């Protein structure tokens, strides 16, 4: 099984220390986290971690189960890039004078879907949103013009097949989740049924 990019989406309670508890699941296995984002989710009070790693599916599946086992984790999903819609935000700071003189800012903005966030006398900050390759391209373009600072956010991803977490949460909030679902009509009658 070959390694590929997986996006792990983890729904959790909002609890101090949980980031560490989740992060060490990866570091324990010497897996590098390529990108990590935490944010609120569609459900109030429920946090959502979006973690990108490069691994085999086998490892990711086991990891997701181990993460889900943590007390304050509600659910962990993992998806390939085909199964999600994802974006990253990138910002670029360049000297205004060079940019103004040497490149056509207008062309730059249009071609790379960039937006000027701040234009000052000394520097200009551009911003783009997109996938890794797209945001990377603009670095290559801006580098010759004295790229001062670059920063990119963690990936945020929407799972195409997901119908959100509201329904799932109701399941979790049932008083004793395992009991009513057990299809076990014999449990109370063991002595009659299971005599040797």
């Amino acid at each position, binding site marked *: 099984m070959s390694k590929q990019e997986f996006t792990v989406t983890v729904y*959790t*309670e909002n609890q*101090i*220390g949980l980031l*560490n*508890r989740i992060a*060490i699941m990866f570091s*324990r296995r010497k897996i590098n986290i390529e990108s990590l984002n935490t944010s609120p989710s569609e459900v109030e009070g429920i946090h959502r971690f979006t973690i990108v790693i490069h691994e085999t599916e086998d490892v990711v*599946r*086991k990891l997701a*189960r*181990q993460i*889900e*086992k943590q*007390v*304050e*984790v*509600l659910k962990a999903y993992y998806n390939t890039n085909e199964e999600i819609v994802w974006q990253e935000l990138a910002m670029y700071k360049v000297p205004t004078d060079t940019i103004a003189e040497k490149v056509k800012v207008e062309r730059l903005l249009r071609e790379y879907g960039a937006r000027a966030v701040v234009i000052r006398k000394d520097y200009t900050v551009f911003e783009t949103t997109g996938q890794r390759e797209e945001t990377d391209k603009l670095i290559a373009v801006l580098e010759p013009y004295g790229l001062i600072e670059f920063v990119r956010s963690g990936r945020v991803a929407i799972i195409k097949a997901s119908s959100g977490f509201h329904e799932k*949460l109701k399941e*979790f*909030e049932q*008083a*004793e*989740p*395992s009991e009513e*679902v*057990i*299809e*076990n009509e*014999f*449990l109370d009658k*063991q002595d009659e*049924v*299971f005599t*040797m």
Partner: protein
Amino acid sequence: MSSTIEVAPKKILAQSNATNLSGSEAVLEAFLAEGVETIFGYPGGAIMPIYDALYDYQTKLKHILVRHEQGGIHAAQGYARTSGRTGVVFATSGPGATNLVTGLADAMIDSTPLVAITGQVFAHLLGTDAFQETDVINITTPVTKWNYQVTDATEIPAVLAKAFYIARSGRPGPVLIDITKNAQLQKFDYSGYEKCNHIRSYRPKPNVRKEYVEQAAKLINEAEKPFVIFGQGVILGNAENEFKKFIEKAGIPTAWTIMGESALQTDHPLAVGMLGMHGNYGPNVLTNECDVLIAVGMRFDDRVTGRLDKYAKQAKVIHLDIDPAEIDKNVKSAVPVWGDCKDTLPLLTQLIEQKVYPQWLQRFRDFQQQEEEACIQPELNPSSEQLTMGEVIRVINEYTGGDHVIVTDVGQHQMVACRYAKFTKSRSNITSGGLGTMGFALPAAIGAKFGAPDRTVIAVIGDGGFQMTLQELGTIMQSEVDVKILILNNQFLGMVRQWQQLFHDKRYSFVDITSPDFVQVAKGYGIAGNSVSERKDLQAAVKQMLDHKGAFLLEVMVGKENNVFPMVPQGSSVAEIRLK
């Protein structure tokens, strides 16, 4: 780690309403509500308010003063393992808390329900490198099922309720609650204690899927050479009876892991022995011949499976486990039966046919015969002049009839004790299985005795492991704990020496260990003792130990270079198990 420092804030806080409870009192009220009877612990600066409160609870809560926090937590583990209840341990901040780490890791990997309470510096000092401050929450995160830092007393009832619920439900494990000193001192309006039975993000029991139970039953009914292997899950699920009914109806040969041992009486007609690196011959070899492998409450540790890519490849595996993360972790299962085996086993029993497999069972007996000749008889009834570890265990079996609690340390004596001890009751084989913690046995035996006060508790320990936690003799002395301490002394760190002999050309690198006169050491603690090195004295010495009222230390000098066999060498398949 006693150290008394700052006391000033207490006076200020103590002025508040006297009808209210302090955080410390709330901790002890939670213990009472949860049915805690015994606490193992060691006081110190940051946990002093709790100890101060404990002074007034002495009639309701028994506190055992240990000699080291590691001893405290191992005792709590031993207590939990024999009693089936949640073990409780106190330690102070900083070094007190870090001394718990080994025990937490041990309890984590062996799924032992524990609640550890650590004191912490005042909340306003957190992160200032205050005296005896350490980041306990982050240190213990990987070795706890859950941990939490309390900085406000009002949180205590709910947090402790959660702690006990998490520790004992589902797949049990250790929980650590770190309580800052101000929260211990703080008075608050206590509105009673409410037990926790639900946390929305936590699902201790996975749903039983009926179709999997049906598929499993079908596989079992169609099998010609089925084999049942079980682990501690049977004990943790209190499912010994359900398990026995299952195998008896199924008629399937059954083997145990070191952690599962004693859940089924060792002389059961379907019992074929122990799995794993030093397990029995038949169960290991025939793992790679069975057609259906039914694994109940076990996690396919590498010491059980040997080389994984050559493990039971021919078999369809049915895996019953409460922890979904264990399914397919190491061994791919054909049918995963998620759930508490107390629930799933009766369902399965209902659906299977009553069967026997005389020829298949005979295969195990044939291997048993070979092992008897090559390994077992030479160990139990040796012709050599030197005593063997196995014959000491044999003599114990003869006196107790298998009605004993054996607490082992880690190493050769552990493997020998687990191989040869007979057991007639569950929760009787207490050992550090997953972590392999030397120094576990002596403190764990103390706890085991408190957990099962009416039973004979025998700590079987090597000369190396005993020296790791022998300070707990002080606890045995002070609290008058009736544990029998059996030191099997081969004057070596025997297991490492065995590996050096077999795999490192007999280069005995730092395994030659010198010991004090153990009987004299015991005597220093007021504990009776004896040492024997000859066969003619063995029976009488064991009898003397078992008949003695109170603690007794018996040292038996055994052959220096005896090896434990059979053995599955590391990196080998279970079928490649060696008899010599």
